[in-house]
């Protein structure tokens, strides 16, 4: 048997001893006070209710913020003068034309 084999065997013996000691510890230690199924069910219901409450709160907050944003947008639409809409329209059309133009140019270059 060479030294490596000897080392591995020694390690195996050591690990076997370690496993036995841990097994013994499992037997010696007091059994845990496992919560009853009823207690666990109580925890589960409590958690589910808590999660439901937090989801309702999140939904409520979402709608509050949404209403605020939508309300602000509607107010802006009604209070803006025709010049604002003209500028908005022109910039939108210009941006659209530029995008289409670059798209067509890109395709042409790709074909070459």
């Amino acid at each position, binding site marked *: 048997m060479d030294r490596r084999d000897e080392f591995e065997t020694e390690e195996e013996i050591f690990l076997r001893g370690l496993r036995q000691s841990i097994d013994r510890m499992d037997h010696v230690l007091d059994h845990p006070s496992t919560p009853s199924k009823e207690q*666990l069910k109580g925890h589960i219901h409590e958690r589910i209710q808590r999660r439901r409450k937090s989801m309702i709160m999140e939904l409520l907050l979402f709608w509050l913020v949404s209403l605020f944003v939508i309300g602000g947008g509607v107010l802006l639409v009604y209070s803006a003068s025709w010049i604002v809409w003209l500028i908005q329209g022109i910039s939108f059309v210009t941006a659209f034309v530029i995008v289409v133009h670059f798209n067509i140019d890109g395709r042409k270059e790709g074909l070459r």
Partner: protein
Amino acid sequence: MKTEECNKVKLAQQGDADVLAELIHEHYSFLYKYLVKVTMDPALAEDVAQDTILRCIEKIHLYDGSSSFSSWLMTMGTRIYIDQMRRKKREKNWLFKERGIRRIRWQFESRNEEWDGVLESLANLSSEHRITVLLKHYYGYTYEEIGEMLSIPSGTVKSRVATGVRQLREEMR
């Protein structure tokens, strides 16, 4: 995973509180015993086990069945313990460590059992080495599985296991 357990998990994920309670009840003792070995402190193990159960209730819908239910609980328990150690830096406080070991020794002595050198050495290992040695050589997980459980590369696991075993053997000499 066993078919029966798989069915139970599915029902629990669909919101059946009775089945979830039954699943947790069946695995609690195993989880606690694992955590005692990891923490080397029965009181701390009970705290971590309870936190793990609460997390299990909250995250049961995320369990994908790729590992057994007990492995999933062990993974969560280990991560909770590591997080606690990081946050509280309890491990650096030798008083906490000593208190845990004393509790286990007390139980050994109460039953006229010998507290041997191997367990003393295991208790003296750092938690990161102890966890990897336990998972590899006691629970029989592969390096890759342990890596996934602890979110670390399998190479790191391998080196931690080797260092842990070497330290244990050196202490035993």
